[in-house]
């Protein structure tokens, strides 16, 4: 594109997603605005039911048929929701791809993994020579730390960590500029988690990709991403530089979420646990006021009324809270409301 500065790689503009359920409509995402600059990395955190997976399923227009989406989802400036199916198929995997959870059912059990990695390549470039494709597959496997010969293996012959690496290799097959990783390490052991994350982050750096990482584990996001956004009950409740969001959370929910995850090697965690009592609300049950108020340890009376909007609490940081927690030691100043 012949512009001076590259536009954002990914942009969500006032996205609302509603599921048509048997007993009525369920709002899964209630107005999300997010921007991801090209070459940067954003982590999206939240518990199950926060809407984060539903939100990023729209990046490639993969949301379930029962979901209605309004707003805009712009990939490299083009609205994915409105484009023709033909254009969408060309965009899928070639401009943006998703690293799915590598559980056994993410891969076709009857096909060798080499074929599954090669598949998007041949779909987007039908004239590609078989030899070139095979070579590329081998390249990709080696990039994720697997021997090229593993291309002949079937999914059930690989371990969980290996399968996840295959998902990463597959996501890179068509050289996309944007990678979305949806809970890529959740199903893995802690040690394997670290390995896989390293593979992912090294590749993102090396290839100068834009990364959006979804996780319910804030500490992972803090290590890997530049910026972070925290979602609760379908809305973004805090956003900002990842380290700030994790270590100096402004929103009480982010603080509780950050406290819920131990950092390996952080001995002090044991003495200051702050778990999160209660359960997140059912997506259909959200009422007036701050949706977190029922569980918030520092909620006040007026938190349950009115509407909450994201507001700046510091340079480059936003939170949807009337009484955000501001660290006295930091150089924080309130912006306009």
């Amino acid at each position: 594109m012949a512009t001076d500065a590259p536009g954002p790689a990914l942009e969500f503009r006032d996205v609302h997603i509603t599921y048509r359920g048997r007993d009525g409509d369920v709002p899964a995402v209630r107005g999300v605005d997010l921007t991801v600059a090209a070459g940067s990395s954003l982590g999206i955190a939240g518990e199950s039911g926060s809407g984060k997976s539903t939100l990023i399923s729209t990046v490639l227009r993969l949301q379930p048929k029962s979901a209605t989406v309004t707003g805009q989802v712009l990939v490299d400036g083009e609205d994915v929701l409105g484009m023709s199916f033909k254009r969408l198929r060309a965009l899928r995997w070639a401009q943006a791809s998703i690293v799915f959870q590598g559980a056994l059912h993410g891969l076709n059990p009857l096909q060798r993994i080499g074929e599954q990695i090669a598949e998007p390549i041949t779909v987007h470039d039908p004239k590609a020579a078989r030899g070139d494709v095979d070579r590329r597959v081998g390249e990709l496997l080696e990039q994720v730390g697997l021997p090229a010969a593993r291309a002949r293996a079937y999914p059930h012959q690989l371990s969980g960590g290996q399968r996840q690496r295959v998902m990463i290799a597959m996501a890179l097959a068509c050289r996309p500029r944007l990678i979305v990783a949806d809970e890529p390490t959740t199903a893995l052991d802690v040690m394997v988690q670290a390995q896989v994350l390293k593979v992912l982050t090294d590749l993102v750096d090396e290839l100068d990709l834009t990364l959006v990482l979804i996780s319910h584990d804030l500490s992972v996001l803090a290590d890997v991403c530049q910026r972070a956004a925290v979602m609760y009950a379908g809305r973004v409740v805090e956003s900002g530089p990842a380290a700030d969001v994790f270590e100096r959370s402004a929103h009480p929910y982010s603080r509780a979420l950050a406290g819920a995850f131990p950092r390996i090697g952080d001995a002090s965690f044991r003495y200051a646990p702050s778990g999160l009592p209660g359960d997140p609300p059912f997506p259909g049950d959200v009422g007036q006021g701050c949706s977190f108020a029922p569980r918030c340890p520092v909620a006040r009376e007026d938190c349950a009324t009115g509407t909450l909007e994201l507001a700046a609490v510091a340079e480059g940081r936003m939170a949807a809270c009337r009484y955000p927690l501001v660290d006295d030691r930091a150089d924080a100043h309130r912006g306009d409301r």
Partner: protein
Amino acid sequence: MGPTADTAAARPTPATAEDATTRSAGMSPGARYALRSISSGLVTLAFVVVFNFFLFRMLPGDPIGLYTRGRNVAPEQIAKLRAELDKPILEQFLTYISNPFASTINSARFNRPVWELIGDRIGATLLLVGTAILLASVIGTLIGIRAAWKRGERFDSVSSAITLTLYAMPEFWLGMILLIMFGVGTAITPGIFPIGGIITPGVDPASLEGVLNVAWHMVLPVTTLAAVYLAEYALVMRASLIDEMGQDYLTVARAKGLKDKVVRRHHAVPNAILPTVTLIFMNLGFVISGAITVETVFSWPGLGLLTYDALRGPDIALLQATFLLFSIGVIVANIIADLMYAVLDPRVRA
């Protein structure tokens, strides 16, 4: 067994710890699996042979009476049978095993060796049943796939209603109705098809005219059998594909930019079709009962009609022989089903 409850049961269990012993023998996993299947089948076969032998000798009543009931049998035959049955059981058993198809005992009804009768008839049955299964599996599978992919739409409701109704039909009744409608003819339908037999008498079966003649005779019975078989295949295929459609790897496939049709054909269907393929083979018992009754209705000279005639006697020697033959057929079909599953699904070979 309802088709909905059985898709899970149709998958054979993959390798267990028993294979630890054969692992050291240095066989490939595939060969090991095949060996296990075949030996299991042979064991079952052995049981069936023994069962067949003892069945008639252990049930109440005079065995001679059973053999000769309703028929005038020559006294030499009776004397021979009595001499046979007076021998020690072990000797009888050994005689039986060496010759389970009793080519020396004549069928009381036809007065020809049982083995000869079977040999005469088996071709006709294979032709009828083979054609019907082929048609039914192709059509049934396609219907099931379409119904699952377009779940909830008109095609699905209509085809489900039709297949459920066909599944509820006694196949011989359908045959009788078709026979009346298109064989004999009614006020509203032409009676253009023959009402029985495999070929018009006098026509040379080896000639082109004979082949066409046989084909013409085949239309009604094959339609009857195929209609009832395809119902089960369609129902199982639909259930299996609906189960498969919820899997994650299909979302991944669409995310890669594949067209919906390609996702269905290359990813969903190959996975979903596994239970249907094995069902086609494992359902041979159902196929056999269909063959018996439909051959009877259409006077098709195959093993089914032979069994019916034997039943009318009753001709015990013939019944025993056909029972054994059918059992062998089912065992062999099960072994083939196991092996096919191993060929199609790499997880089973592990």
